[in-house]
């Protein structure tokens, strides 16, 4: 506890310093108002004992200067006989209390302790007030963010609808033109023209593929925004995870074989049915397997499902490039694909994993990843099941 003693009387300064030391305070002294203000600015004090009548800047003026610099430090006026009126004025100006000269040490120490206790309580109260204000500001900011997120979702949804309509025409016309060209081709006998027509047909095919990819992306955005906004339609029914997995594996294994990869499925026989949306769960399985296919260049992709306690644990393990730990959370963020951090940039915009995560969460489950660069990745889905579904 650091006390500033301001008094022009050397005897007072000496006695106060000695006695306050004895009571465990550390003391700095000043013999006039100006040097007191100067010291006060440089050092942190817990309280000030201030003489009222001093040469130069008097006690009242000094008090005003100290209060200007730090109103939270309690100031106790030390007054000689006959100064009561001025002491009262000092209290009106913000001094904590006054003690009379000759200074009674026990009274001074008591007054100091009370003053510092009060200052500490006031500081605490102020902090409390501040934290309440901060909480309410945070709440406001949070509400604002929720509102902005809602507007963004609505915007994405409407813009996606608007893009989908012209895209349907583009795909439609490209398809018609291509069909016409295919029909026309056998009638062309000029080799050069036939080659040109063949080129145009190929270009149209590329346009259609790309347009279809765009449609798929827009569908994904629509799907994600609808799920986020809670307006997506779900068809809840008892579904067999085993069937969904077998179907996904069967439809994708030709693509794995084509890339020289092995797709192995190990699905336990006792996997119970769950209540779920079959199309969306199918979408998740398809997505996880496609991802494994996309990011694995050689080796095996293993797809397993087992019953564990009250849940079903599905894992898709690949021997691909793996994902650095710092990115494990990022991959579930919207529009964050890790393609550009790998050697080849795979196609897609990075909506598959966020959508899959949302779907699994809507089923009360968890989708997580464990992975190490160079060692492949394991995506794990845990889905709860309820006995009544299987009765």
């Amino acid at each position, binding site marked *: 506890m650091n006390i500033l003693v301001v008094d022009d009387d*050397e005897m007072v300064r000496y006695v106060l310093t000695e006695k306050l030391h004895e009571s465990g305070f550390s003391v700095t002294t000043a013999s006039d108002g100006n040097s007191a203000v100067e010291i006060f600015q440089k050092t942190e004090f817990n309280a000030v004992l201030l003489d009222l009548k*001093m040469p130069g800047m008097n006690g009242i003026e000094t008090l005003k200067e100290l209060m200007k610099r730090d109103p939270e430090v309690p100031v106790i006026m030390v007054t*000689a006989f006959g100064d009561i009126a001025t002491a009262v004025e000092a209290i009106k100006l913000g001094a904590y209390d006054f003690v009379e*000269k000759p*200074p009674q040490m026990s009274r001074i120490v008591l007054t100091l302790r009370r003053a510092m206790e009060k200052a500490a309580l006031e500081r605490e109260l102020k902090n409390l007030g501040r934290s309440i204000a901060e909480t309410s500001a945070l709440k406001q900011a949070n509400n604002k963010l929720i509102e902005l997120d809602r507007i963004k979702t609505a915007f994405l949804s409407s813009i996606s609808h608007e893009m989908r309509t012209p895209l349907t025409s583009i795909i439609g016309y490209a398809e018609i033109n291509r069909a016409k060209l295919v029909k026309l081709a056998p009638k062309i006998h000029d080799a050069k023209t036939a080659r040109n027509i063949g080129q145009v047909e190929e270009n149209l095919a590329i346009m259609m593929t790309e347009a279809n990819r765009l449609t798929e992306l827009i569908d994904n955005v629509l799907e994600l925004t609808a799920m986020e906004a809670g307006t997506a339609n779900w068809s809840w029914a008892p579904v067999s995870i085993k069937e969904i997995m077998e179907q996904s594996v069967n439809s994708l294994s030709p693509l794995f074989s084509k890339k020289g990869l092995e797709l192995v499925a190990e699905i336990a026989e006792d996997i119970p049915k769950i209540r779920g949306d079959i199309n969306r769960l199918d979408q998740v399985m398809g997505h996880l397997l496609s991802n494994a296919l996309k990011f694995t260049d050689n080796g095996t992709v293993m797809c397993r499902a087992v019953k564990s306690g009250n849940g079903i644990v599905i894992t898709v393990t690949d021997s691909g490039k793996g994902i650095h730990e710092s990115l494990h959370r990022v991959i579930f963020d919207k529009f964050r694909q890790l393609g550009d951090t790998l050697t080849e940039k795979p196609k897609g915009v990075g909506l598959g994993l966020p959508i899959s995560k949302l779907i699994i969460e809507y089923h009360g489950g968890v989708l997580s990843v464990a992975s190490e660069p160079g060692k492949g990745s394991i995506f794990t889905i845990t889905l709860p099941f309820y006995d009544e579904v299987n009765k």
Partner: protein
Amino acid sequence: MNGHNVLDREQSLQWLEGDERMLNRIKAIFLKNIPNQVRDLEACIERGDTGTTERMAHTIMGSAAMMGASIMSAEARKIEESAIKMDMESAKHHYTTFAAEFEKVMMALQADGGLE
């Protein structure tokens, strides 16, 4: 002693909470500073400087009170009040009484032990 107690040792020790060592220490400070302070006070009164007279008389009043020199303190207080009222004639008058008391206090202090 001379009909009144020039230096009340008990009074001093009371506010010093019985600390004799400290009483001796403040006595030394008092003896070091008071002759100059009294000389300054006299000069201020002579030149009619009410502000400095008020302040100097006030300081001396406090120091004398701490030493238990209650008459000297009271006389200094009278000078202070005169200065506040801008009545320097009255201040001069009180200074005479004050100066006599001051001499007594100094003698008492310089006597062996000095605090009786």
